């Protein structure tokens, strides 16, 4: 590309709201992140944190209404996707960026054979003949490790196991060799042994094709295994970004620290788990100041009034906490424990 300095994807101050009967739910409140070629960014958050909605806005598959992009930019190779016409976006979708969904069974069309669905990518986007597209589909299925691809290309989604279906989803996303892949909880519905197979495949293909990958997940274990960078989301905002190694050693936001301490470890047996008290906020009624303050052991008066900006922690790290320094040093509040 000519603009070699611009990142592959640059999301700036994205805001998404949902207009519902009960009011406006602010699902995404000023999210910014960048992804480079060959890089894996993990977006971590619990349900309702806005991680999937951000991805849908980037892909341009947000349901509008009730959803509405209220502000911000999505720069893909320097071009703002939010300003493009739907027709132009459709050309980018699939060929330049593609998405892998969580639930492969409901994302695939049950009345079309797997081969037809894969071939569609080539006939629609590349204008290939049916015969060539079929050959390409078989090649793709072999590439994602589906045994007996020549025979199985004629089969329907229900004839495949969960892991195999997810491989087909990956094959579909990779068909046109996009520069960016967004994987939304790609292994959450799978068993651990199959999850390991699928993550392995995805990571291998990513480095082979030098793609940018946004991995959306709630699983800190998966993140530690594959990601380069991590962005932690809470109530529609990014609360911490960091290279993956640093965040596990010394989190700079109390929410990240709470999450890390609340997961049971395979290699440890503790008596009681640390639990973040309370519940995530209602998106129609996000607390003023820092959204995490009602659950935070370090919260002071300033946290209830002033929304913390993303403070620069180091060259590569940022944290949206007024007391990031104290968090980084591992300080506990007197009320904690």
């Amino acid at each position, binding site marked *: 590309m000519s603009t070699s300095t611009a990142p592959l994807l640059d999301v700036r101050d994205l805001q998404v709201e949902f207009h519902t009967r009960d009011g406006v739910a602010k699902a995404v409140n000023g999210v910014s992140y960048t992804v480079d070629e060959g890089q894996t960014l993990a977006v971590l958050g*619990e349900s309702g944190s806005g991680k999937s909605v951000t991805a849908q806005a980037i892909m341009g598959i947000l349901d509008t209404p009730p959803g509405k992009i209220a502000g911000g930019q999505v720069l893909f190779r320097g071009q703002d996707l939010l300003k493009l016409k739907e027709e132009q976006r459709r050309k980018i979708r699939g060929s330049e960026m593609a998405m892998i969904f969580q639930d492969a069974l409901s994302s695939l069309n049950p009345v079309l054979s797997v081969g037809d669905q894969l071939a569609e990518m080539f006939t629609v986007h590349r204008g290939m003949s049916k015969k060539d597209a079929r050959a390409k589909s078989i090649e793709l299925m072999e590439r994602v490790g589906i045994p007996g691809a020549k025979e199985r290309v004629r089969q329907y989604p229900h004839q495949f196991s969960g892991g*195999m279906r997810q491989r087909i989803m990956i094959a579909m996303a990779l068909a046109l060799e996009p520069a960016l892949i967004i994987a939304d909880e790609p292994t959450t519905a799978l068993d651990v042994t199959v999850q*390991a197979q699928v993550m392995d495949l995805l990571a291998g293909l990513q480095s082979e094709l030098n793609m940018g990958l946004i991995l959306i997940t709630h699983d800190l274990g998966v993140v530690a*295994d594959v990601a380069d960078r991590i962005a932690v989301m809470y109530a529609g905002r990014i609360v911490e970004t960091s290279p993956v190694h640093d965040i596990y050693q010394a989190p700079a936001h109390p929410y990240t620290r709470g999450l890390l301490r*609340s997961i*049971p*470890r395979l290699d440890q047996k503790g008596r*009681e788990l640390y639990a*973040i008290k309370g519940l995530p906020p209602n998106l129609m009624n996000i607390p003023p100041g820092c959204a995490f303050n009602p659950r935070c052991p370090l919260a002071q008066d300033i946290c209830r009034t002033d929304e913390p900006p993303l403070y620069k922690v180091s060259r590569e790290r940022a944290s949206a906490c007024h007391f990031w320094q104290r968090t980084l040093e591992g300080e506990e509040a007197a009320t904690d424990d």
Partner: protein
Amino acid sequence: MTEAILEVRDLAKHYPLTQGILFKKQVGAVRAVDGVDLDLITGETLGIVGESGCGKSTLAKMIVHLERPTAGTIRYKGEDITKLSGRALKAVRRNIQMVFQDPYTSLNPRMTVGDIIGEPYDIHPEVAPKGDRRRRVRELLDVVGLNPEYINRYPHQFSGGQRQRIGIARGLALQPEIIVADEPVSALDVSVQAQVINLLAGLQDEFDLTLMFISHDLSIVRHISDRVGVMYLGRVVELGRDEEIYDHPTHPYTQALLSAVPVPDPEAREHRERIILGGDVPSPANIPSGCRFRTRCWKAQERCALEVPLLAVPAVFRLAEPGPAQHPSACHFAEEKKVVPTAE
């Protein structure tokens, strides 16, 4: 060893597969549970782990008598409960209660929380006299960490974690001795999951419960269990105390399962050996001969196809010094292999 409150012997559940509409004939069977032997010891937490389709939920349903076994026995305090019916069954059921996986579908949306938690008293009125029920329900709400004032609210007014607490309160209502929890936290977010696990562990101490905790999540099972059983295709393949299973696994399936779990520590990713299994779990309608894991096992030999390995301490360890590797493992070629790095 203390006494077993529940003894499961050779338990099996086969679901028939039929063909034809008018003249149904059986053409095979899905062998969901196929010969399970387990003891549940008074006061312990027994964890059951396995992937989907391994039969762990069917096992739970048979123990609480929601399914009738095809074969085998379940002895509760020495008495076989599989053939019970009527009044005798009702008395046993009071003592074995269940907490379900999905807090969204296991609570009736048209009943208030008070009615949901109090319903067991309608069936077993001897536990609480009519006038005393509301007070009991309030107490239960308090015990599981919910505001007793919420007694008249409906399930949709609660979050997932709170609903699971309601499910737990309902399980506790009859003061049972055994609680079978089938994936009680898998539908919850990480931060809420920890709250519910702590609650379950606390309640167990408080009420001297015997807990059977079923999950696909190996980390959670280790956290909460005293002993762990690993299931594969309807059978228990390895059984032992938590450090025996996690630090000294001897069955290749357990080893593969443990090595596949992502560890939340990026430092571990370089110096961790991962065993990535090929293929999928075979269908329980068509179980391989001999050892059922052999189709995915890297150690499989001819003997594995011919001889079913039994769940017992393998011969190699039986003669050796007593140690953590000396626990039941259903493998002809069992050997110790450390797959989980020890944390400092």
